[in-house]
């Protein structure tokens, strides 16, 4: 199921056309193939789906929802947190509406 936790862009590799993003403290790589060249930059907030950046999110909105996620995730340990984050991105049927 899609919580779609906003991720923050930490670095961009223009050569490989990928970005490293931070989702609630969990870092992973995501492809930029669906985004206009140069449109995704460090510090932007983005939505990730099965390994790709799907779109950008308005910073204010992103911070607002991150507040809620943080409260919940603060209660988990490291391992649990990374599992939850990866599971969110890996929503099995996303691709559904």
């Amino acid at each position: 199921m899609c919580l779609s936790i906003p991720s923050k862009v930490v670095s961009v590799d223009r050569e490989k056309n990928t970005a490293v993003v931070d989702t609630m403290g969990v870092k992973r790589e995501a492809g930029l193939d669906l985004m206009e060249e140069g449109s995704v930059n460090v510090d932007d907030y983005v939505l990730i789906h099965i390994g790709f950046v799907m779109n950008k999110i308005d910073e204010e909105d992103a911070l607002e929802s991150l507040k809620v996620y943080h409260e919940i995730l603060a209660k988990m340990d490291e391992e649990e947190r990374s599992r939850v984050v990866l599971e969110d991105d890996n929503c099995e049927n996303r691709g559904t509406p």
Partner: protein
Amino acid sequence: MSELKLKDLYDGFRDPATIRMLSAQIGEAAKALHEPLRIMEVCGGHTHTIMKYGLPQLLPDNIDFIHGPGCPVCIMPKERIDHAIALARMDDTILVTLGDMIRVPGSQSSLAVERAAGRDIRPLYTPMDALKIAKEHPDKRVIFFAIGFETTTPMTAALLHAAIAQKVTNLYFHINHVLVPPAIDAIMSDGRAKINAFIGPSHVSVITGAKIYAPLPEKYGTPVVVCGFEPVDVMQGILMAVRQQAEGRAELEIEYSRSVTMEGNVKAQQLIDTYLRARSHFRWRGIGDIPDSALELKPEFAHLDAEKVFAEVLPTEPIDDHKLCICGTILKGLAKPMECKVFGTACTPNTPLGSCMVSSEGACNAYYRYAGVLG
């Protein structure tokens, strides 16, 4: 490791005060309705939110939910799963796909059963991994069984793009991407479901833009609200739909403005258009044939199309669901899971007879888990 699941996290997004307030506002607005509001939620993710939070109980009697066909696993006809199995049984082949698809029964077997029997079938975390696997195994053919609605289609297109650019020649595609608007159209023009409002799933619209729903209000006079997945989002979306109906409006509105625009992701749309085109026919499990409701590779990429290249091993017979299974009727908005004779008895998530119970997004699965039938 604790058994915390992602769905439990939803609890944190349930702000009781906000939900109660929305519930009261909906109750107030619904008094002005001239006829009951039958809202179809197209996406399985919405069905889950609705059932898990008992939202129907927070709504006045003149508002009812109709569950739509919104799960790519639920609507995959058995013959397509049989295709995947036939492909996986070929020598020197690695079949790769996403998610729940592996567990869904075909006519005689499933990908999970085939994998246990020694076939090389791998679930992917991201479609791009298919490219990696193809490069690591130049002596094998790797077949990507691509599934999903508009949300996952651009990722398949990106994989196609990368495979062609990098001249990888042992990666093939079996395309099963389906489209939401033709399915809604099929249900509406059938007419029996009597739906008079929609909440549209936000993730499809992130890619396509909310504009894909624009014809619905015009054609059928139904409000459409594109909506997020948290309970607060869904309640807010319902309120917007009720207000429209009460005021005699039928418009397309966006509740989930934090990531959905009218236009969507144009680059992703262009990528899809480069490689894929509408398929003239696709049979939706339970619903039947819907014209132009799915995509296929364009003819110039036929050499990558597993349906063409391996046509001789693919079965062609359409295969229906178990006789007792009423998934089709449910997907058309004409019945609820409890009306199925074997719901919760012969058919459970562990022993599913139909896809609506297999898929974690399926309506039967959601009812089973949350509607108090667990005993």
